[in-house]
């Protein structure tokens, strides 16, 4: 299994798909990287030569922010919002949606599993 930027990428998938196993490389970036390296995206990862892999690694390392670095910068951005006590930071701290979505219903991704409140309307009906 070839390694790029400290991550194993799957052997038996086309390289344009394999690259997406890196955090920070999606469909668009995968295409751009391969275009720059002049490698056909359909070739399986295990059919690439050492040279080609090294080339991909250098392109990614020099021009793209991926994996740990990217994760850290995202975390820092959120930490900054929290530190300046902005509205967005407050929403992050509370685990509520940040971009103005409704919270009367839905918003379960941010709020997590439903917490049933005893005595609230409809709880008896559920039994």
């Amino acid at each position, binding site marked *: 299994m070839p390694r790029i930027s400290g991550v194993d990428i799957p052997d038996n998938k086309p390289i344009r798909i394999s690259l997406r196993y890196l955090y920070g490389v999606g469909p668009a970036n995968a295409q751009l990287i391969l275009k720059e390296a002049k490698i056909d995206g359909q070739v399986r990862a295990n059919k690439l030569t050492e040279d080609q892999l090294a080339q991909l690694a250098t392109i990614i390392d020099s021009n793209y922010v991926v994996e740990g670095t990217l994760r850290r910068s995202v975390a820092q951005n959120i930490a*900054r919002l929290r*530190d*300046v*006590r*902005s*509205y*967005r930071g*407050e929403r992050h701290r509370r685990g509520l949606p940040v971009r103005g979505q409704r919270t009367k219903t839905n918003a379960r991704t941010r709020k997590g599993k439903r917490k049933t*409140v*005893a*005595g609230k309307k409809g709880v008896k009906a559920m039994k």
Partner: protein
Amino acid sequence: MPRSLKKGPYIDEKLYRKVEKLTQMDRREPIKTWARACTIVPEFVGHTFLVHNGKIFNNVFVTEDMVGHKLGEFSHTRTFRGHTTGTRAQRAKGSI
């Protein structure tokens, strides 16, 4: 959708002039303002604003990190503090 770059950031003219005046006089007293939509520009750093939230004026001391945000982002308009925990019986006893 973000604001058009052509227009540049929205800055409340009056507020900006007031800040400049204070900076010139080298004074740093709080500025009372309703201009929540005004973008914080680097010139504001170090000043204190009293930003209206619809009811009261909240103290906002501007730091370098706040540049690019709006004044209103730091003066919250809602008061929700969270739900109480525990059951009704526990709350009545006063254990929570």
